[in-house]
């Protein structure tokens, strides 16, 4: 049976679905006997989701959008001046 360390080393590929069948089986066998590793796997996955959802909320503020538009417009009319 694989140990927790090996289990965590395989997590990345397990989540990507890129492990071969045999390795997947031994990993899942480990999960059955090891609730901490299941919790670890779930929170590992959650970490990505939570961070992605939070960081993707960044919007360009209106003031910034307007300032950028102005600069780009000036640049098109007089390239190379700023």
């Amino acid at each position, binding site marked *: 049976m694989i140990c*927790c360390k090996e289990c965590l080393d395989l997590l990345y590929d397990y989540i990507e679905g890129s492990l071969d069948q045999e390795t997947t089986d031994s990993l899942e066998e480990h999960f059955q006997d090891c609730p901490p590793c299941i919790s670890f796997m779930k929170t590992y996955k959650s970490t990505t989701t939570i*961070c992605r959802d939070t960081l993707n909320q960044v919007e360009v503020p209106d003031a*910034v959008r307007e300032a950028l538009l102005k600069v780009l417009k000036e640049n098109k009319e007089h390239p190379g001046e700023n």
Partner: protein
Amino acid sequence: MSFTQPKEDKKLEEALVREFQGGNLEAYDKIADIYQKKIYGLSFNLTRNQMDAQDVTQEVLLTLFRKIHTFQGKSAFSSWVYRITLNASYMKLRSKKKEPNVSIDELMPSFNGAGFQQEKIQDWSENTESLLFTNETRDVINKAIDLLPEKEKVVFLLRDVEGLSTEKAGEILDLTVPAVKSRLHRARLFLRKKLSSYFEEFSSRKVEK
């Protein structure tokens, strides 16, 4: 908002780039429009500063305008834009604070001699819903990401936040696929650990009530 591109988008974008290279300024406006939010988002997440993100976005959009003739099409256009964005963001970071000295290794999982988990692992993955998007949670996440060493941070932002493929992140950062994977894995382990203390504390607060 992510850089995972369906095929048609990519085709359209390539056409826009060629038109702009041929002198069509309307094509440039469209390109700037498509990329503005992506450039701003990535540079904001790297610099964590609105002024810096604005400067970077302006600089990148102007660079696209001036240097479009140097784009050869050897890699994807978006990869080129990303590289310029990262370089401009790094310039901002360099001119400022020193990276915090956190050893990422200290936050890696620990095992006993037989290779079994040493610490108690709580499953908080089901309890995040009510916390998500609160200011407190946002702060915790932003602080955790700020603590990531730059190498791991940029891989995390490109792969997990922007949603790029491992191969594409490797192309942009000039890293092999295994190197991207290992940095991303370390970043996730580090962030998981950081977020765990927060969410676990929150669950215990809830139990007490």
